[in-house]
């Protein structure tokens, strides 16, 4: 990664958000470069999903700044985020169960005919194309998403994110609902997207997943960033130490949440 030469795609600086007095995210800073995968690690409740939901427009931050391509960005709702090319695959999958795959892929951005009606046939054609690339075994285009398996629903959620030429992809526990084979598919996909120059935030509490795929890891604890490190500079044990105890190893750049020694 020639990170020095390239400008960061996304910079989150001193982001804070509180829910009823509890600081879910406290002065967190993190950045992401084009073609880079940054793994965001931490226990449940460490604030990783919350931080990322601020970037995807689901929550509004209390303080801090988001810069995209070096320019301050206004992100107040999911529509704003999408306009910046930020696509998110949520942990909860966020699909509408009662409509079919094509309807979910194009939700909020439907293709329409010349007279403004839904062009279902065109959407289904495009859906078949994208899904064919992601999951060639997918055949159930006419059924409500409810009828699909966890893995199939996941491919729908992923297809939706890559359908619209995302530049920044946020994947919140993308493999949580998947079997080993499907997990491998997602891993391959991440590598492919990375090679296309897309920046990816990969949120997970499975350290092994992240170590294989990420260029850098950022560990959060109690809403604060413990530290950020290149995966080549730290060992899994050291990262575990960061997650569990907040102990920042020498190979990492300490954040505000690092344990004071």
């Amino acid at each position, binding site marked *: 990664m020639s990170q020095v030469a390239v400008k960061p795609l996304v910079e989150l600086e001193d982001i804070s958000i509180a829910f009823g007095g509890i600081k879910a995210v406290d002065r967190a800073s993190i950045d992401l470069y084009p073609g880079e995968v940054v793994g965001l690690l931490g226990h449940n409740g460490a604030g990783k999903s919350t931080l990322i939901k601020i970037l995807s427009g689901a929550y509004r931050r209390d303080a801090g700044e988001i810069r995209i391509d070096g320019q301050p960005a206004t992100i107040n709702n999911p529509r704003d985020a999408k306009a910046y090319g930020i696509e998110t695959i949520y942990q909860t999958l966020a699909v509408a169960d009662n409509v079919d795959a094509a309807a979910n892929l194009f*939700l909020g951005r439907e293709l329409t005919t010349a007279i403004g009606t839904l062009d279902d046939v065109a959407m289904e054609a495009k859906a078949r194309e994208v899904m064919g690339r992601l999951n060639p075994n997918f055949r159930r285009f006419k059924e409500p998403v409810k009828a699909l398996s966890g893995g199939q629903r996941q491919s729908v959620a992923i297809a939706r994110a890559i359908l619209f030429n995302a530049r920044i992809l946020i994947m919140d526990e993308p493999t949580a609902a998947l079997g080993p084979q499907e997990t491998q598919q997602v891993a391959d996909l991440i590598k492919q997207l990375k090679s296309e120059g897309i920046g990816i935030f990969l949120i997970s509490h499975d350290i092994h997943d992240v170590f294989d795929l990420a260029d850098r890891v950022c560990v959060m604890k109690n809403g604060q960033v413990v530290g950020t490190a290149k995966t080549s500079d730290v060992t899994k044990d050291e990262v575990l130490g960061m997650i569990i105890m907040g102990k920042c190893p020498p190979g990492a750049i300490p954040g505000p949440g690092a344990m004071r020694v």
Partner: protein
Amino acid sequence: MAEQNATANSAHSLTIEGNPVRKFLTATEIDTRLLGMVGALLLIWIGFHFLSGGLFITPRNLWNLSVQTASVAVMATGMVLVIVTRNIDLSVGAVLGTLAMLMGVMQAEILPPILGFGHPAIWVLTLAFGLFVGLLIGLLQGTIIAYLRVPAFIVTLGGFLIWRGTAWWITSGRTVAPLDSTFQLMGGGPMGSIGATASWIVAAFACAGVIIYLAYARRQRRRFSFPQRPMWAEGVLAAIGCGVTLAAVAVFNAYPWPVRIAANYAQAQGMEVPEGGLFISHGIAVPVLMAVMVGLIMTFIAMRTRFGRYVFAIGGNPEAAELAGINTRWVTVKVYMLMGALCAIAASISSARLNAATNAMGTLDELYVIAAAVIGGTSLSGGVGTVVGAMIGALVMQSLQSGMVLMGLDSPLQSIVVGIVLVFAVWLDTLYRNRAN
């Protein structure tokens, strides 16, 4: 032959397996739920036909049934969208009352002095005014629900009291009558029906529409080489669509004007009254035509527009819809505005039929409308429902009422039966859904 064709290019047709019934249903893509409802409707009709001593399945009763169903059916199409978005509207009957009263005052007391009594523009202006106020009421209720986050149940329960009170208050409880003579046509009756010839013309257009739609859908699917229905299935669908339309029109045309009215009409026109009385067909009643049009438009809105897609997505998963960038609140407001406009149409039909606007108009309608939607397969947990189902649901409700009247059942018993049927229908539906999952 057609069947052979279908299996020959199997890459482009649906995989059809199983016993003949299943095969038929898969090939035609007919919703089994809908089929069940039509079956239930026919059972009700045949049952009442025998219980009432052959009074039910007659042109006269079926024609009346169609007119009586129109108002509730119109509102039920909107209630589907309301319930699909996980909301409810308890105020529709009261809104109907207020709008009928406002439109009554408009056409009977405000416009005639300005335009002259019986001016041909009165009905249009009145209806436009009603639609406008309906939209406004919907905007108000929808905004409170979507933006102020007051539960729909409470807002529309309040609305139920407010609009019923308003209907009363507008004329201090006085009934407004008679209504404009053109406006009255929306209520049906001999004059408010389009007659035999026009009915056949409408039927011809409807049949052509069915066939053109099927052909268009087939061409679209071929354009992207998607699986298609076998040709025989398309034929069956076309035959069902056209057959039902033609049968309905034949029934409506078989119901003649009452002898006295026909005689008066003949006298006024200077016509000879032939031996055995004059046979003038009612044909399709104007309110029925309006309800069918509303049904078509609402189906189009629900299935073919972004707005409709958003309504269902919100019902399926509000959070996902919001995260997908849909302005869920504004969609909710628009659903209530649509509901308000439909109340105005229903109010026109009801008041025109009575030739008066009364403060009690539409009492209990909210319950019939909700029941129609629910019997028609709309799920109260949201996300599921069809416009055509709700309209058939309205027909089922009205058939029960009408059948019990023909049987001479006491009115408290009628309410009891309707209540039992509602609960029973929803229970059946729950069973069906559990099995489907």
